C-alpha cells in the first residue's frame, strides 16, 4: 500500500507551480469573461485589418440588470495581431468561443476574404459554423450604429428567419471556404444599416465573389433570382400581378433542377427547371378559375425574368457562385469529367433554357 502511495504523492508535484509552471491547463471564471457574439472585420489603414468585436446585450448579477454591449476595436497587420490587441484593451478576458456572427466590410470583401476564413478554420475558439455577412460600408460603422442594443439580436433573427424562409439565404464560414476550395466563386448575403430613428440592419441582396474577392452585388430582383436558383423560396411577397387587383402571393417552396444538354460531346445549353409553390395569402375579392390561371402564368413569367436577370449578371462577372457546374455534373455524371475541364471557360457564354412551373397551392377560398 505504501509503495503505491509514493508515486501518487510524487505526482502531486505536478500540480505545484515548480519550475516554469505546473503544466496544468489554466482555469478561467465566466464572470471574468466578455463573451463576444459578433466580430466585424474591415480593411485597415496601411493594408492591415481593423477588427471590431461586440458582446451583444449583457446582464449583471442575480437580478440580471441590463448592461450596454461591450464594443472594442483594434487594428493590426493580421487578424491574430488585432485579436491579441483587443485582449489587452479589455478589463475582462475576451472569449471568442461564442462568436457566431461575422461581418465583413465591403472594402475588405473586394480585397479578399480567404485569410479571414482560414483564421476561422484554424483558431481554437472560433468555428466555421459562424454565419457571415458582408455589410455596406464598414463593419465597424455597422456595429457602432447599433451600439446601444447591439446587433447580435438582429442578426440572430436573420439567422432564424433564413431557416424558416422569412429571410434570405444564410451562409456559414465553412460553406464559404468549401465553395472557394471546390470552385472559384461563391456568394454571401449583404446587409445595410437603415436609420429610421433607430438603426436597423436590413438585407439588401447578395455579393458575389470570384475567387476570394468581391466582384459584384445582386440586389432586388437579381437577389431573388439567385434565391430561386438556390432552391430557396424568396422572402417577401408577390403582388399586383393582375391589373385592378390586390392579390398577395407568398412563395413557400422552390425546387430548381439543372440538366445539361449535350450534342455529341459538346455542351450546347443548360436546361433550368424551376418548380415554385406559392400560397395566395391575401386577395381583394374572389378569383375566377381563369384569373387564377392568369395569376399563375404571371408568377411563372416573373420568376423566369428574375432567374434570367441573375444568370446574366453572374455570366457578366464570370462567377458561377451557385455551383451550377457541379450540379450539372451530379445530374449527368458521365460528362462530369468533361464539364470539370471546360466549365470555367463555358460558363460566361452558355445559353440557358429556363422553364418555371408555378403552382398556387392554397387559395383560402379565393375561388
Amino acid at each position: 500500500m505504501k509503495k503505491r502511495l509514493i508515486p501518487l504523492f510524487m505526482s502531486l508535484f505536478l500540480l505545484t507551480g515548480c519550475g516554469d509552471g505546473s503544466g496544468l491547463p489554466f482555469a478561467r471564471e465566466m464572470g471574468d469573461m466578455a463573451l463576444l457574439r459578433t466580430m466585424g472585420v474591415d480593411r485597415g489603414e496601411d493594408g492591415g485589418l481593423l477588427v471590431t468585436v461586440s458582446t451583444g446585450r449583457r446582464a449583471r448579477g442575480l437580478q440580471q440588470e441590463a448592461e450596454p454591449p461591450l464594443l472594442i476595436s483594434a487594428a493590426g497587420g493580421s487578424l491574430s495581431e488585432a485579436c491579441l490587441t483587443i485582449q489587452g484593451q479589455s478589463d475582462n478576458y475576451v472569449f471568442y468561443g461564442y462568436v457566431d456572427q461575422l461581418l465583413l466590410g465591403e472594402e475588405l470583401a473586394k480585397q479578399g476574404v480567404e485569410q479571414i476564413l482560414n483564421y476561422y478554420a484554424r483558431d481554437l475558439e472560433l468555428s466555421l459554423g459562424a454565419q457571415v455577412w458582408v455589410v455596406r460600408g464598414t463593419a465597424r460603422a455597422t456595429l457602432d450604429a447599433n451600439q446601444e442594443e447591439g446587433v447580435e439580436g438582429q442578426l440572430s433573427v436573420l439567422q432564424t428567419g433564413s431557416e424558416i424562409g422569412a429571410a434570405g439565404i444564410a451562409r456559414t464560414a465553412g460553406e464559404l471556404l468549401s465553395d472557394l476550395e471546390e470552385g472559384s466563386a461563391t456568394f454571401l448575403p449583404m446587409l445595410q444599416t437603415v436609420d429610421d430613428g433607430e438603426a436597423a440592419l436590413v438585407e439588401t441582396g447578395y455579393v458575389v465573389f470570384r475567387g476570394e474577392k468581391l466582384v459584384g452585388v445582386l440586389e432586388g430582383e437579381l437577389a431573388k433570382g439567385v434565391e430561386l436558383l438556390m432552391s430557396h423560396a424568396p422572402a417577401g411577397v408577390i403582388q399586383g400581378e393582375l391589373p385592378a387587383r390586390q392579390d398577395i402571393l407568398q412563395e413557400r417552396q422552390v425546387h430548381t433542377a439543372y440538366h445539361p444538354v449535350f450534342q455529341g460531346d459538346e455542351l450546347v445549353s443548360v436546361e433550368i427547371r424551376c418548380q415554385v409553390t406559392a400560397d395566395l395569402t391575401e386577395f381583394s375579392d374572389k378569383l375566377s378559375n381563369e384569373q387564377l390561371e392568369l395569376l399563375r402564368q404571371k408568377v411563372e413569367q416573373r420568376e423566369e425574368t428574375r432567374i434570367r436577370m441573375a444568370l446574366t449578371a453572374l455570366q457578366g462577372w464570370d462567377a458561377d457562385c451557385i455551383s451550377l457546374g457541379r450540379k450539372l455534373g451530379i445530374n449527368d455524371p458521365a460528362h462530369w469529367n468533361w464539364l470539370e475541364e471546360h466549365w470555367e471557360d463555358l460558363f460566361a457564354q452558355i445559353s440557358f433554357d429556363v422553364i418555371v412551373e408555378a403552382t398556387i397551392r392554397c387559395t383560402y377560398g379565393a375561388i
Partner: protein
Amino acid sequence: MQVTRGSENDHPRPEQIPHYPGPVTMENVQRIFCDCADFSTRTVILHNDPGRQVTLCYINGMVRGERVNDYLLRPMAQDPFLASVEMSKVFELLAGGTLYNLYMDRQSSLDDVAQDLTAGNCILFFPGQEEVLSFAVSTEEKRSIGESDNEPALKGARDSFVEGVRTNTSLVRRKLRTPDVKLREFIVGRHTRTPVDVVWIDGITPMETVEEVCRRIDQMDIDGVETTGSLEEYLVDRLTTPFPLMAYTQRPDRFCGALLEGRVGVLADGLPLGYILPGTLEQFFRTAQDKAFYWTMATALTMLRYCCMIVTLLLPALYIAIVTFHPEAIPVKLALSIAAAKQEVPFSTIFEVLIMLLAFEVLQEAGLRLPTPIGATVSILGGLVVGNAAVEAHIVSPAVLIVVAIAGIAGYTMPSQDFSGALRLWRFVLAVLASVGGLFGLACGIAALIHHLAGLESYGVPYLAPFTIGAGQGSGRPDLTRPPLPKMKWRGGVYGLRNRRNQK
C-alpha cells in the same frame, strides 16, 4: 442441524481447544459460571422420591420459565414411571421422551455444555452419568416480523428479516418449499458465538462458490460478529475499493429471488438482513419491486437509475470542467446567465462546487444523527439557509446550487446505500480531477473508475458482469432492461450455473 467449529490455527492468536477441559460435572460448570449472577441451579425430585434427584442448571433471562415448568419440571414431578423403574434406566427414559421437549441433545464436553447454557438451554445433570441432557427452552424475545424500513414494498410481500437466524431461515423456507434448499451453519466469533448460515439451492448454485463462501466463513477467527461489517469485510474479495462487493437485503422475497438465480445467501444471527453472493454491479440497481411492477415500468425505472448514477457521479465535475475550461459548449443564453450571476460571487467555480458538495454531505450526516423531530427542522434550515441565503448573499451562484442539488437527489435513487456512498466519494474525486484538468482530467478519472470496476471480482465473477462478456463465461442478461418474465428463460450465465434454464 449441523454445527461446525472454527478450525485449529497456528497464527499468533492461538485458541485453546477445548476451551474448557475436564469432565462434565456440576462443579466444573459452576466454576465456569462463577461471577455470573444470572446462573442458577435447581435440584428436582423425581415423582416425590427423595432418593431420586436430578439437578437443572440454566441462565436466568435466557430460558423461558413456562417451558421449563411445563416440559421439564411437570413430567419429572408427575410421571409415576420415573419413580418405579430402576435408577439406572431413568436417564434413558428422560432422554427418550419422558420430558416433553422437542429439541434435546446429549452433551459430553464442557465446551458444548457452556455454549448451550449461554444459548438459553437448560442442562440436566443425572447422578452417576458422564453425559448431560441439554434441552432447548430459550426465550424467544425478538422483534416481530414487520415491514422493511429501507426497502418499502409498494406491491408484494411486506415481511422482512429479523435478528433471529432461525426465524429468517424459516422465512426463506416458507418461500422456497423445496427440500433442495440447503443450510450449512457456522459459529463465528470466539466471544459472540454467532450462528452464521450459508444458504443455497442444490442443483442450481455452483458448489465451487458455496465451498468458497464456507471456507472463508470457516477461516474467520475473530472476537465476535458485532455489526454487518464484521462479516462483509471478511467475505469480500477485495478491501481496497469503496464499492460494495456483497449485496444485502432485508426482504426475504428478494433474497429468495437471488437464490433462484444461482447465488449463495448468508444469514447471521443478530443481523436483520441476508447477504447475497457473488455481488455484481447490476445487483445494486435492482429492487425487489422490479419483478412486481409491469416490465415496461420496471425497465424505465432501471434505466432511470442508471441515468441517475451517471448524473450524480458526473454532473458536478462536468459543470466545473465546462464552465471553467470549455465554456463554449454551454448554450449562449445559459452562458450569459451564468456569467451574469458569477460576477458578484467572490469564489471560483471550483471552490463553489466543492464547498456546496461538502455542505450537502454535512447536512446529510447531521440529518442522520439527529432525532427525527429535530432532523426535519435541520432539513428545512439546510434548504432555506444554505440554499437560498447563500445565493442571496452571493456566496454561491444559483447554477451551482442547482447542479449540486440535482446530483444529490439523483444519488438518492440508488437502491443500495453502500453503492450510493461509493458514488459520493467518487463524485468528489471526479470533481477534483475536473478542477485540475478540465474535461481531460474528468475523462482520465472516468477511465480510472471504469478500469477499477473492471478489475473487481466477487467469487470469480467480474463485478461488471453481465455488461461485459469474459472468457469462458456464458452471455448474461444485461440488466438495463427487465424483459417480460415469460421471456426470461435463462438464469445469468456468468456464475457457472449448473442449470441455466428456469422455465419451460
